[in-house]
């Protein structure tokens, strides 16, 4: 039996026939991944709260289909299946709709191929890399300044700054671009200036190596306070420090 955590409050059940014991409220997705079994996901990100947007992580629990990223395991005796004909059909249906919207995303096309899905000519619309998974919106809320958000609903839904303009509150931290699963969110860094979401930021230079490495808005956040050197230099200096302390003793 696979025991996930030395936690007192455990629940046990079966995942694809294998007995497991996990901490109560572990999501099905987390439990499945502990077993090194794969479930496809697009909107899920380890560092962000679940949102159940992409509907790709569908699995069955006690014969009922649910999004595994949002479903907490609470009762003993659960029986989870992560792969059967119904599940594959449901995931293929979701992928059909996604690839019709975003046929130019290599990641989506790879998933689609795995499920035997090809874009349908009759649904051909604007090829848009954004799948409305909301990872960027969640990342901006948690790591950034909640500068971007969704606007509209249904087919009209989009990610944007307020009033469909460049977001005033953006600090250029790139958290949104880092979590985007399809590469829709692009940025550029040229001549010490960073551009994203129609905004441009003069970057601060590392006082060790002189390379531009962050925006003033990023450095004004408490978690960055007093960091005047870039991540690479910081690691290099820490390693040198450690080496010195080892050789001294």
């Amino acid at each position: 039996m696979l025991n996930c955590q030395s936690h007192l409050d455990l629940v046990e059940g079966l995942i694809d026939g294998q007995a497991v014991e996990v901490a109560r409220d572990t999501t099905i997705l987390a439990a499945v991944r502990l077993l090194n079994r794969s479930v496809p996901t697009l909107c899920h990100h380890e560092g962000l709260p679940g949102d159940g947007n992409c509907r790709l992580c569908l699995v069955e629990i006690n014969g009922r289909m649910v999004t595994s990223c949002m479903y907490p395991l609470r009762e003993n005796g659960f029986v989870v299946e992560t792969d059967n004909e119904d599940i594959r059909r449901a995931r293929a249906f979701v992928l059909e709709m996604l690839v019709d919207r975003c046929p130019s995303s290599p990641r989506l096309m790879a998933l689609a191929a795995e499920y035997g899905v090809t874009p349908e000519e009759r649904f051909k619309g604007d090829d848009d890399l954004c799948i409305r998974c909301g990872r960027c919106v969640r990342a901006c809320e948690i790591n950034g300044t909640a500068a971007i958000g969704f606007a509209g609903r249904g087919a009209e839904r989009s990610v944007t700054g307020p009033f469909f303009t460049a977001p005033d509150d953006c600090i250029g931290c790139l958290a949104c671009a880092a979590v985007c699963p399809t590469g829709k969110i692009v940025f550029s860094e040229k001549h010490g200036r960073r551009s994203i979401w129609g905004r441009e930021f003069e970057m601060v230079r590392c006082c060790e190596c002189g390379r531009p490495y962050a925006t003033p808005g990023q450095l004004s956040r408490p978690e960055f306070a007093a960091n005047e050197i870039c991540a690479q230099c910081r690691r290099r200096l820490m390693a040198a420090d450690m080496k010195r302390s080892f050789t001294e003793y």
Partner: protein
Amino acid sequence: MNPLEDLLQSRPGEARQLLPLLQLIQAHYRYLPEEALRAVAEKLELPLSRVFAVATFYSALSLRPKGETVVKVCCGTACHLRGSETLIASLEKELGIKLGETTPDGSHTLESVNCLGACALAPVVMVGDETHGNVPAASARHLLGKVK
């Protein structure tokens, strides 16, 4: 005191007051002015992006001024079968605007809705708060005259 300030004061500064406040502002101005959304975000201590997301999500809220009277034509299955499309065409002609637009004098806005839940009365049209059932396509003028 300006009316926006009055509206903001009428509710406690809690995040859950977002939608009620936006509804009050919509009812007063017949749209959500940008400065009002900014003021709501500040008062409720919510990111402007969240306020904007809610403001654009509900079709009862609008970023552009709506007419004094909003004419909503039901385009549900039953209404569609019983001629809502012809009805829209004649209302468009009568008002001189396209579906979704507002007359230049600000008197009327023409909208379609997916279902008003009165399929037995199809086709159904709402003129302001009044609901009209079994509306013949030829009655567009009559329908608008009723509220003038």
